[in-house]
């Protein structure tokens, strides 16, 4: 049996591990554009100079040797041909497979504003290669403009602050981290970044950007006419699933590759996991999908059920935040807030069920909130301050000594 995995992110790596655990003799080949296995969540540490390439590797020591996985790196897949059971690479090679996993992730989306897509000093921050290019360009740059104040935009800023750059961040919405945080929690991070020297321009969009003779953009004009000088631009405006190489393959795609509950695509023996599916953009879910797809490639019938993806943790300047579920207030919500000098906690409850939790400053022991929210557990009968609810109120020990949740 020959298993081919496209992509060396967490979905691909977890799939390969699972396959090896289930099939001791099969041939496993991973193919990636990336030349180093790396955690995308730690690219800011590379930009800051805190870690080198090896320091971003999330796999165990001697991973490829121990699991007997072949790895073709630095090559791109150009076509997938399900009828021939073969894929084509940009080096002209053709590779056959018995089972194929599409785990090629996603690409940074650069919006078609002015000449952003044409300029040589505009980067996304998604791959180690982006971070490497940003570090190089940053050597020549004084002013950095970051478009978007989500986690990726702030990661970029956090890393570049270590290099002493003057940073401006433009955000369309009137607060930073608009997907994750309310105004209060966002202000706390904004203040920390401002103290470190970052300037925010909120509620504004980039409207014009023209390349100069050197092929670079040196100023961006905003929708209020303000001009922002820049030598390096980082666009953190979201990602799009990397499905270009599937064109003509007949594999059904929507925003990402369409999969069933078992992570099978519309074509036989082809599975997909991770960001390429568009099911979720976060690490734990991609890891889980990789494991499930890997098991199913070995003949299993596991289902991807733990689909909940509205969850995140944030840590900048030692200020830690956890947010799960809905953040924006809706009609009929009961909102409770607890605040002191070291923490801010905000919970949204509706019909006895927790809809969303935001914890800033202290996220100790907060894992139970995700369970309560995603499983819509009714907490109205628990006679406690809501912020004191914990696993004691649901405590159950299974026969093997593990905890469990009541089903």
């Amino acid at each position, binding site marked *: 049996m020959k298993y081919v995995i496209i992509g060396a992110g967490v979905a691909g790596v977890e799939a390969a591990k699972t396959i090896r655990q289930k099939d001791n003799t099969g041939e496993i080949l991973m193919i990636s554009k990336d030349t180093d296995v790396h955690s995308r*969540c730690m690219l800011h540490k590379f930009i800051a100079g805190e870690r080198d390439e090896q320091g971003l590797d*999330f796999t*165990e020591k001697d991973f490829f040797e121990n699991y007997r996985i072949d790895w073709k790196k630095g090559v791109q897949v150009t076509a997938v041909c399900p009828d021939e059971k073969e894929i084509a690479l940009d080096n002209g090679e053709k590779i056959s497979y018995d089972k194929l996993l599409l785990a090629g992730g996603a690409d940074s989306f650069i919006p078609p504003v002015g000449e952003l897509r044409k300029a040589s000093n505009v980067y996304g921050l998604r791959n180690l290669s982006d971070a490497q290019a940003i570090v190089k360009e940053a050597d020549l740059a004084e002013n950095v403009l970051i478009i978007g104040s989500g986690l990726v935009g702030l990661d970029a800023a956090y890393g570049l602050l270590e290099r002493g750059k003057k940073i401006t961040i433009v955000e369309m919405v009137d607060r930073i981290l608009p997907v994750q945080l309310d105004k209060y929690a966002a202000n706390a991070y904004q203040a920390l970044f401002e103290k470190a020297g970052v300037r925010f321009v909120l509620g504004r969009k980039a409207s014009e950007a023209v390349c100069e003779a050197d092929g670079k953009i040196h100023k961006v004009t905003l929708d209020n006419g303000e001009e922002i000088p820049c030598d390096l631009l980082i666009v953190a405006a979201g990602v799009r699933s990397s499905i270009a190489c599937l064109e003509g393959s007949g594999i059904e795609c929507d925003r990402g590759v369409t999969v069933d509950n078992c992570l099978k695509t519309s074509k036989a023996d082809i599975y997909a996991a991770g960001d390429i599916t568009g099911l979720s953009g976060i*690490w734990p879910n991609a890891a889980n999908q990789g494991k499930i797809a890997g098991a199913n490639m070995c003949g299993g019938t596991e289902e991807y059920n733990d689909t909940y993806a509205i969850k995140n*943790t944030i840590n900048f300047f030692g200020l*830690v935040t*956890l947010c799960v579920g809905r953040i924006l207030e809706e009609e009929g919500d009961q909102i409770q807030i607890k605040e002191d000098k070291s923490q801010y906690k905000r919970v949204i409850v509706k019909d006895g069920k927790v809809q969303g939790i935001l914890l800033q400053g202290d*996220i100790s022991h907060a894992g139970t909130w995700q369970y309560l929210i995603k499983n819509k557990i009714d907490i109205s009968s628990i006679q406690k301050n809501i912020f004191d609810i914990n696993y*004691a109120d649901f405590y159950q020990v299974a026969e093997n000594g593990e905890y469990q949740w009541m089903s």
Partner: protein
Amino acid sequence: MHMKRIVIDYQKCDGCKSCSIACMQAHRETQGTVYDLDLTDPHNESRNRILKDADGQYKPLFCRHCDDPKCVESCMSGALHKDPKSGHVFYDETRCGSCFMCVMNCPYGVLKPDTVSKTKVIKCDFCVNAGGEPSCVASCPKQAIYVEEV
């Protein structure tokens, strides 16, 4: 797979917190005995907790070193891994990226960031460096926690 787990008989727990003190002592950075352990020093954090439910029943919360550990699944740096030999989930703070997705992903709320630096996770290590029996188990006067092969 067979592994050693700290089994909990919560009805025997009388909430004395000897286990928490023993854990703090086992993981303190300074030398000394439990008699000079500074209980208010935030560097000395316990990996276990005794919770109380709404009815006043004590419910010991200890890392289960789960068969399918959700903390490991969420770890984006490779700092957390389930040791294939012992079955225990170990944490390497030198690899940790301090993202705390493990805190969010533990379904039982066992994990927390360290209080002082907010860069590490406070996680049970089964007292592997203290040789053999976990300190919490050795300290329990009620045998409410004990190690068992499961």
